């Protein structure tokens, strides 16, 4: 029981990461609408940025899995 509660609290850490990813996409679309010629560069930077932002969410997921199975 304690494991499950700890895992649930740990997985809350994905919330800010999701917000951050939304911001990355919003800014990328803004950039594309300002300068449609740079769509290729912006897209590749956006995917790289998304992957970097996602890392924090994955740390939470890892800790959550550890709490569930090893706690």
């Amino acid at each position, binding site marked *: 029981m304690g494991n499950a509660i700890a895992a649930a609290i740990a997985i809350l850490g994905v919330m800010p990461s999701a917000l951050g990813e939304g911001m990355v996409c919003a800014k990328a679309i803004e950039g594309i609408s300002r300068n449609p010629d740079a769509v290729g560069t912006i897209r590749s930077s956006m995917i*790289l940025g998304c*992957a970097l932002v996602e*890392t924090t969410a*994955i740390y939470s*997921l*890892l800790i959550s*899995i550890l709490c569930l199975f090893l706690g």
Partner: protein
Amino acid sequence: MVSAIDLGQLFLTPTIPGEVWSSLIVMLIIAILAIIIGIQAKHQDPLKKPKGLLLIAIIGVQFFDKFVEGLIGTRIKWMGGFVMGIATYVFISFIFSLCGLPSPMTYMAVPLSLGLITFVLIHETSAKYTGLKYFKRYVDPIPIFLPINLISMWAPLLSLTLRMFGNAIAGFVLMTIISWGIDSLAGIIIPFMGSVGGWNVGSIILNPIITAPFHAYFDLFSGFIQTVVFISLSTIFIGQELPEEIDVKISEKGDVI
């Protein structure tokens, strides 16, 4: 006292996890490919157009050289080859679970080894270019920061390792949950096919149809993105330790302007 039988059991019993065998198979594939490309390159007539595997290899080398040049310039000559080798290994490791064998990335030791390579290279590059001033990085800016610096020096290793391991394990967990879901779904929709070993036979029919897009995302796309992120971060971390690039222009007479 350790007898010969005990030693034999230690090496012969299959205590090596499956992921390590997968890692060895991936290395074997890359080694065989490299040997084939090397032989082809040796026998290639330089006046004729390359084709097949050799052409792909040439395009790859050019791509990775350009990639490194865009990030840190041409200050380290071996960087392009290093990045190409690491990228091939990481990408094939990520998509290796599509063959039905365990992906090496879901075993913590494999991403940790890859992270350690970058970690050692960061410090080696720093020590090579700054000499004895290398130790100044631990007491920067004042000696009281020594404990903080000693902790923060492990941050790149930890982030590189956990990023790849976490992505691989997240994909693995989600694919397992989807497979479970499909199995219980098959038990409801097509229960008349029976079950073998606790798994419904109907899920064998449903699984390839439903899980294919998820495999494409979690294995192919995620693996590709993580490869790009890993090699970019490795290159940037190592490039940070280099001294400032001095733009030296040489005139037609040979004088430095």
